């Protein structure tokens, strides 16, 4: 599907073949992988621009082509809105990047992720860029976002918030303020810096010294399963599919995972964020499709089990 969407942009079928490389999961292998494939182009690790041109040249080229198009449209009486102009720039950015680097759509998307704040004003998980003076990141009652996230992780892992407050050394009223203001900032911040950073900390399962001794109960089996979803993407996809199937049969998926696999919601979501960040950083459409197909397949398997427990689906007797 992705190939259909983006394939036409690359205009080079030979390049497409590298999508069929064997599945790579670890970061390091990936780096090696595309560096080998693109020996002719070296990328700046920060901006993912090719090093054979400057960013200024790139931006100028995009602007020149986009402005020419915009002038043309206007000359023919089109009424262009801000949204349209952004779209025109977006498309030319893709075209110029692909052309100048002779790259495939995956590399282009990695480039877009790495530059999303610059070009669209929106942060992308795995590429968060933080300005020191961002007022949205000022601590609230002396508690920074990282610490707030650590508290959230403990609470959604099942630890009583009163315990968490005690360990932090403040009264519950402070927590309630934090838990009002941080979510408010997430809503106010149109660049999504607060939200993506919260997600990133969540994925890292951050903790702070004050909370280190607070441990959610976890069974031996739960600990083993947790370790496994962190390292085995297929197992993670299986549980994600199962969880989704559970909801479709009136079962609370979070509780079901806890009861059957011993993994609490905080840990599960943390691992989900981890995989999402990894996926953003090493964008590979072939892998993405493989994993999403696998999750769907598993979801169907679990759905069949849940259906059987409820005497089948209501339309089971309808046949073609």
């Amino acid at each position, binding site marked *: 599907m992705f190939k259909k969407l983006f394939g036409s942009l690359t205009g080079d079928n030979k390049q497409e073949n590298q999508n069929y490389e064997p599945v790579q999961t670890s970061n390091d292998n990936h780096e090696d992988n595309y560096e080998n494939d693109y020996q002719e182009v070296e990328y700046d690790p920060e901006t993912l621009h090719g090093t054979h041109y400057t960013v200024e040249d790139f931006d100028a080229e995009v602007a020149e082509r986009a402005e020419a198009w915009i002038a043309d449209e206007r000359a023919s009486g089109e009424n262009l809105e801000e949204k349209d102009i952004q779209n025109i720039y977006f498309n030319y950015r893709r075209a110029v990047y692909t052309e100048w680097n002779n790259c495939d759509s995956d590399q282009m998307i990695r480039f877009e992720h790495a530059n999303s704040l610059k070009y669209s004003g929106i942060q992308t998980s795995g590429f968060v860029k933080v300005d020191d003076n961002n007022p949205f990141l*000022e*601590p*609230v*009652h*002396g*508690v920074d976002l990282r610490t707030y996230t650590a508290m959230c992780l403990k609470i959604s892992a*099942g630890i009583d918030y009163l315990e968490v407050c005690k360990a*932090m*050394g*403040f*009264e519950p*009223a*402070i927590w309630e*303020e934090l838990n*009002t*203001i941080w979510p408010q900032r997430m809503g106010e911040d149109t660049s999504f810096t607060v939200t993506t950073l919260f997600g990133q900390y969540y994925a890292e399962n951050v903790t702070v010294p004050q909370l280190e001794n607070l441990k959610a109960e976890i069974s031996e089996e739960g600990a083993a399963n947790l370790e496994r979803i962190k390292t085995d993407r297929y197992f993670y996809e299986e549980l994600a599919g199962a969880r989704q199937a559970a909801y479709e*049969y*009136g*079962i*609370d998926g*979070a*509780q079901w995972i*806890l*009861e059957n696999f011993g993994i609490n*919601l905080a840990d599960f979501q943390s691992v989900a964020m981890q995989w999402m960040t990894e996926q953003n950083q090493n964008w590979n459409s072939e892998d993405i499709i493989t994993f999403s197909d696998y999750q769907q397949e598993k979801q169907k398997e679990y759905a069949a089990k849940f259906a059987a427990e*409820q*005497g089948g*689906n*209501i339309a089971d*007797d309808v046949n073609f």
Partner: protein
Amino acid sequence: MEEKKVNSFLDKLKQKAQNQTNYGGEFEISEAKMNAKDCPNCGAGRAKQDGLTNCAYCGFEFINVKLTDGVYIKKEDNSL
């Protein structure tokens, strides 16, 4: 016959949903409450003019962070 299948499915679904444990446990509905916390160290009460963070008499730390302007709590609530 069709009716029966639909209804029995719904009944099972309802039963199952009702018998499940809620993630995070039951939610207790509570009434509004007023409380006060005396200093656990010296027993003194906490007075408005002394701020919220420290005991005015013995210096005990009620809250170990520096208060900023929040929803109801303001930075003036820091003890001096």
